[in-house]
């Protein structure tokens, strides 16, 4: 699957799933805007990997919870490469806690990053995609949208909203050759899920029919498929990649 010359923006690309997505596009010859918020050293390492493996990287520090930063990411990418072919809205945060003890600023942080970041980045890239009558927006959602655990009210709500956003935006832009899909990972081995996996590893594993956690490269592979020409007729879908965790236990 070659993405030679394709311009890709990956938010939250310094770590975890975002890192894997950015690196995999880079290895296929893509021009990758590697967005990060705090972790410059990790983002640098991702950019180096991309440059070594045949792609081209552009590091962009930006906090996608800020609308001006969303525009900045797209502007810098277009200034350098002229357009955007693929946007992967990956960056996300968790601030878990029971609703009754939830801090308002934590709620705001989760919604402004996970939901609004994706919304305003999509808004900023769409004119370029529309002009070329082709584009891919891939939102990284979560199985928590429909199957959240206690304490995940803000995270689950943000991902549920992303799923709704995905479907309606897909409707709006389908006639312009742009597809919009979401991927809903289950328990993937990342820093973000490390805490949960560490606390209840055996209990969670027992609920996963596949008998193991997923890895970031598997998610990145699905992202690439949705970004490829092979997926040109798929839009408005929320695709789970969860080892069967949401299937429930058979009786």
């Amino acid at each position: 699957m070659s993405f030679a010359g394709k311009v890709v923006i990956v938010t939250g690309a310094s770590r975890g799933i975002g890192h894997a997505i950015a690196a995999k596009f880079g290895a296929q010859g893509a021009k990758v805007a590697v967005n990060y918020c705090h972790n410059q050293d990790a983002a640098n390492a991702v950019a180096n990997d991309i440059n070594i493996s045949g792609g081209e990287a552009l590091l962009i520090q930006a906090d996608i919870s800020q609308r001006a930063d969303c525009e900045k990411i797209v502007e810098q990418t277009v200034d350098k490469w002229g357009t955007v072919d693929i946007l992967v809205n990956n960056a996300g945060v968790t601030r878990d806690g029971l609703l009754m003890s939830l801090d308002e600023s934590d709620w705001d942080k989760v919604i402004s990053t996970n939901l609004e970041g994706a919304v305003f980045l999509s808004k900023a890239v769409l004119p370029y995609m529309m002009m070329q009558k082709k584009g891919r927006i891939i939102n990284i959602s979560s199985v928590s949208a429909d199957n959240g655990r206690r304490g995940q009210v803000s995270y689950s709500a943000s991902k549920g909203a992303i799923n709704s956003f995905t479907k309606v935006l897909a409707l709006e832009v389908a006639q312009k050759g742009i597809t919009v899909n979401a991927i809903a990972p289950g328990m993937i081995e990342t820093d973000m899920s490390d805490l949960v996996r560490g606390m209840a590893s055996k209990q969670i594993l027992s609920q996963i029919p596949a008998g193991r956690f997923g890895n970031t490269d598997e998610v990145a592979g699905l992202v690439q498929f949705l970004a490829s020409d092979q997926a040109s007729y798929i839009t408005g879908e929320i695709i789970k990649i969860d080892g069967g965790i949401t299937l429930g236990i058979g009786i």
Partner: protein
Amino acid sequence: MVNKEEVYSKVTNCLVEALGVDEEEVSIDSTLTGDLGAESIDFLDIVFRLEKTFGIKIPRGGLFPEHILSNPEYVKDGKVTPSGLDELRKNMPHLDIEKFSKDPNVNNFADLFTVETLVNYVATKLN
């Protein structure tokens, strides 16, 4: 003064690209919606292409009235109210609001937008 023939030719190209119509389908008096099949997202597409093609800046709602016809103060029972018509006159000098005001049904509004409207709008901007 700009050459209107040249503007018309470039506007036609924009419409061919944005709407996927054939060049032969486009004439100076074609209506964007009725004759050329434009839908809401197409109007944005047209604006972006005109901006890029002519190097002009078209403010949001500058060419197509995005917020006037969705404002309940300006539209009642499917008709644009007198204050709505005033708002259109003020903001849309490139449109023939007098003609529209004879039967201000919102469904007729799209008919005001012809290829000529776009050509005139762009020519005014360029001058």
